């Protein structure tokens, strides 16, 4: 293994070998270590597959610089500075919207392309940087989808609850706007990530007389909310959420199969079965870690793949050229074939993944059945 930084070594048989650094900004500590770990594994798998590509007679070895931003904005700014100091040609990440927002201006200023595999915040690229790209779907898509789905279920009164975090607030905002536009009555509630007792919120939901509750945060609080709703005799109120609740732990945290049964979740990507490269990827993932594929692992894999593709397309490791290449890149990855949006229009922001044929109605839907999330046909 070569780990000599960007030094160039002569090799008689295969021309030059050069090591390039690619940053992985993830969050192994903080609220979502499982996501952070999956992202890292996704990138490592990609390195195994794509490292050692050649441009001309130069072989490029990829060295990953994995840094932990703890999902905190301030820490992310430091990580971004460090990435700049390390001289990476591109960054995969960050993991969470809040942290990424903080890091983006620094990457942009230093002209380092950044591809996130998991940042789904609708407003992630509000500032319109040409250095930011993502291989996962914008939550705007899920927000619209949740709204459409709730209306399909016949919702008249919907409670939207977030956990005061960037992801949840963003998703709830989009959903709420969409529902309001459709004339559905809504009530907004909040909790803090880490809260245990949601009895006040549950009482408010009950008093409001909601027929659908949409929790846009993550599974620990979602599970508690569902559990406390059932215990307050509200098992007949529909419970929905975004991909933040589509986790196996949700079922246990909601107090078991009975409580979780029939809870709905959308997802920010096509079901695995529809992802062309998924089976192969899952096998590799299993081999490497002994686990099933973690959240957004394949998107991160694709992010790194797309970056490498852009480098090849640019024919150079000059970051300015890579950025240029990304804008017109069409990439065939594990999750499907996609391009990146070149400008902001409506819910789509610059750098968003553009997947052909995607509408709010065919965003993947899941439901808990017998204690497991299964796709809704």
């Amino acid at each position, binding site marked *: 293994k070569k780990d000599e930084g960007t030094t160039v070594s002569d090799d008689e048989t295969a021309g030059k070998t050069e090591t390039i650094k690619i940053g992985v900004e993830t969050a192994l500590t903080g609220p979502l*270590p*499982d996501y952070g770990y999956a992202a890292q594994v996704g990138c490592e798998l990609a390195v195994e597959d794509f490292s050692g590509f050649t441009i001309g007679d130069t072989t490029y070895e990829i060295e990953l610089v994995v840094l932990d931003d703890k999902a905190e904005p301030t820490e992310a700014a430091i990580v971004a500075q460090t990435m700049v100091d390390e001289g990476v040609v591109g960054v995969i990440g960050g993991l969470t919207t809040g942290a990424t927002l903080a890091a983006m201006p620094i990457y942009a200023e230093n002209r380092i392309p950044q591809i996130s595999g998991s940042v789904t915040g609708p407003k992630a690229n509000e500032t319109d940087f040409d250095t930011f790209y993502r291989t996962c779907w914008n939550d705007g898509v899920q927000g619209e989808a949740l709204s459409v789905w709730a209306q399909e279920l016949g919702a008249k009164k919907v409670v939207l609850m977030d956990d*005061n975090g960037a992801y949840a607030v963003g998703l709830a905002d989009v959903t709420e706007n969409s529902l309001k536009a459709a004339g559905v009555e809504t009530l907004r*509630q*909040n*909790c*803090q990530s*880490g*809260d*245990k*007792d949601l*009895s*006040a*919120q*549950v*009482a*408010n939901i*009950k*008093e409001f007389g909601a027929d659908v509750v949409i929790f846009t945060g993550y599974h*620990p609080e979602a*599970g*508690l909310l569902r*559990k*406390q709703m*059932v*215990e*307050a*005799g509200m098992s007949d109120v529909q419970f929905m959420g975004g991909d933040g609740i589509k986790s196996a*732990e949700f079922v*246990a*945290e*909601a*107090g*078991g199969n*009975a*409580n979780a049964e029939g809870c709905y979740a959308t997802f920010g990507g096509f079901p695995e079965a529809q992802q062309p490269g998924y089976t192969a990827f899952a096998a590799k993932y299993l081999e490497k870690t002994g686990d099933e594929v973690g959240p957004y692992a394949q998107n991160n894999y694709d992010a790194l793949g797309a970056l490498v593709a852009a480098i090849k397309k640019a024919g150079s490791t000059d970051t300015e050229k890579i950025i240029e290449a990304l804008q017109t890149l069409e990439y065939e990855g594990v999750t499907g074939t996609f391009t990146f949006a070149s400008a902001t229009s409506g819910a789509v922001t610059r750098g968003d993944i553009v997947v052909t044929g995607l509408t709010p109605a065919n965003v993947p839907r899941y439901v808990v059945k017998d204690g497991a999330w299964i796709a809704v046909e």
Partner: protein
Amino acid sequence: MSLDHIVTVTIGGLTVGMIYALVALGYTMVYGVLEFINFAHGEVFTVGGYVAAFTLFALGVSDQMSTVAIIGSLLLALVLSMAVPAALGLLVERVAYRPLRGRSRIMPLLSAIGVSIVLQQLIIIVFGPTPITMPTLGISSASVSILGARIRVLALVIITVSVVLMAGLTYLVKATRIGKAMRATSQDMEAAEMMGIETNQTIAFTFVVGSALAGIGGLLVIMYYGSLKFDAGFLYGLKAFTAAVLGGIGNIPGAVVGALVLGLTETYGVSMDLGFLAWFVVAGLLMGLYVQLVLAPKKRLQHISDDRRTPGYERSIANIYRLAPYLAVRTLVVERTDALRSVSARHAVRLMLGNLFLVVTAAVLFANGSSRIDTRWQPVIAFVVLMVILMFRPSGILGKHITEKV
């Protein structure tokens, strides 16, 4: 607001309050004896919850088992979730606090913060960062209907347990020999030794009892909520400590009262219509006027000398609530009577500002008709309540103000 909403919210608030109380009792006990904030207490509580869940999983408890077996397992879990935290408390005391005895008070506090961090990290390392969940059991979700509201039996259990423990602890501290030893140790450790009290054992005992209490809290919480996260202890610890201070730290019934005040305001605050508060403010204004006009003439001199004595900052706060529009207007506009001569113009302005504040509060509350605090402010409520109460009762609700003899 329907009745069942009020009942639901009230029971919810009481339950949260009582859970805070379970943790707060331990805080207060340790504080009562050692006069230091055992920051690690929250983590001990978490460990209790983890041990309970772990035990039940290990025993494979489920509703399929016989009632006897379930109750047996629960009892075992109870014993373990008291014993392990108790042992942990003992260990922590021995390693991190005992060597610091007799040193400046900030040292054990810092040590406790250190221990708290260590314990939290150990929980992460041992159990991982995702929340630990309870096996689902029928009894933990059983509920009864009270006045149209569904109330969980476990909530009632929690409330009962807290009250019983409070009574037991009060008895222990007030009336038993070891309780006396605890009190003596808290006031003067060396003098306690001179009376033949084994202070080390007394303190260890305090830690054992306090930690076991926290363990029970952990068990009940994980049964009630079904899951527990590694950092729950920090949040609960913070709330419980706030409650203990609110009630008057070192005071056992105070801890429960403080916890209830906290739990109820937190829940009421975000789920009750607060428009009615406006009436309290109006009532307050009227009462203040009454005091000033009818009762004050005799008391006024007292106030004035108070005024010379009390530093300005305390005065201005007190005056906001002392409600003396009459006095203020008289001083500024009408003639200056003898009694009022030493009231300064600044004082008068303060009084007017105070009343303005109240009038505005009332107006806002009225104008806002049906007003409810946004749930996102819920965590702030606890701290605001704490600050406001401590401003008026610097030693907490039930705490005694101790004057120093010179």
